[in-house]
């Protein structure tokens, strides 16, 4: 096999891995953000984000 094959194979593999990791991280982030939004929509909010006048519910 030619040397070029090894060069392109390694660059190709490097591209594959970096893109896969990047895509996975990004997709994970999107999924998490969507889950947070869903929780927000369901009315569960973080304490720090809760408006001051609302009475703590059971804590």
């Amino acid at each position, binding site marked *: 096999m030619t040397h070029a094959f090894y060069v392109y194979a390694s660059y190709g593999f490097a591209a594959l891995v970096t893109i896969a990791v990047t895509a996975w991280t990004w997709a994970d982030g999107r999924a998490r953000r969507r889950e947070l939004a869903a929780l927000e929509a369901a009315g569960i909010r973080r304490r*720090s984000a809760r408006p001051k006048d609302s009475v703590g519910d059971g804590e």
Partner: protein
Amino acid sequence: MHLTAENLAARRGEDLIFVNISFHLAAGEALVLTGINGSGKSTLLRVVAGLLRPEKGTVIFHGEESLGGRDPGEVSHYLGHRNAMKSELTVAENLDFWRTFLGNTGSAPLSVEDATDAVGLSGITHLPFGYLSAGQQRRIAFAKLLVAHRPVWILDEPTAALDASADRLFADLIMTHLEKGGIVLAATHQPLGLRNAQELKMTGFAGVDSGIWG
């Protein structure tokens, strides 16, 4: 000599099991923890013994000799739900091991024979621990408290699986320890029949805490 807890809080998973528990026990005093199943009695005892890190607050033991406080775990016996005995070894071997391993601090402890005698089982020290009945195992685990001296006893349901006569026997042993100036913390569902014991009723579930992530 006294044991002081201040503003203790402990967490299991995400739940705070209790908050703001304080007590002060001087020599000869006992604290009995009661409460329904899962209310946090064992958790509190493990925090006092230093086996669980409290979420907040401190427990300190002040001895007679030294001025600074000590870690209560080091001066305590802990009798948990599990007996801390190897079922492959005989009763005598088990007790002998703990006697040597725990070492002797302060006043002279009982010998292995005397200790098994005190819990009413002197006849069966040659049997492997695993052969004993549930109640006999519990009694031997209690005998462990007698073979090495510790000023503080932390007892988690000491009388589980015991018959009525052993109940009384244990109560007497605990009273003797208190009279000699010891401190006892016990969690229990059945009245131990201790005189002048403080009582602390655990309620369980002191709130959800989402921690820093929420």
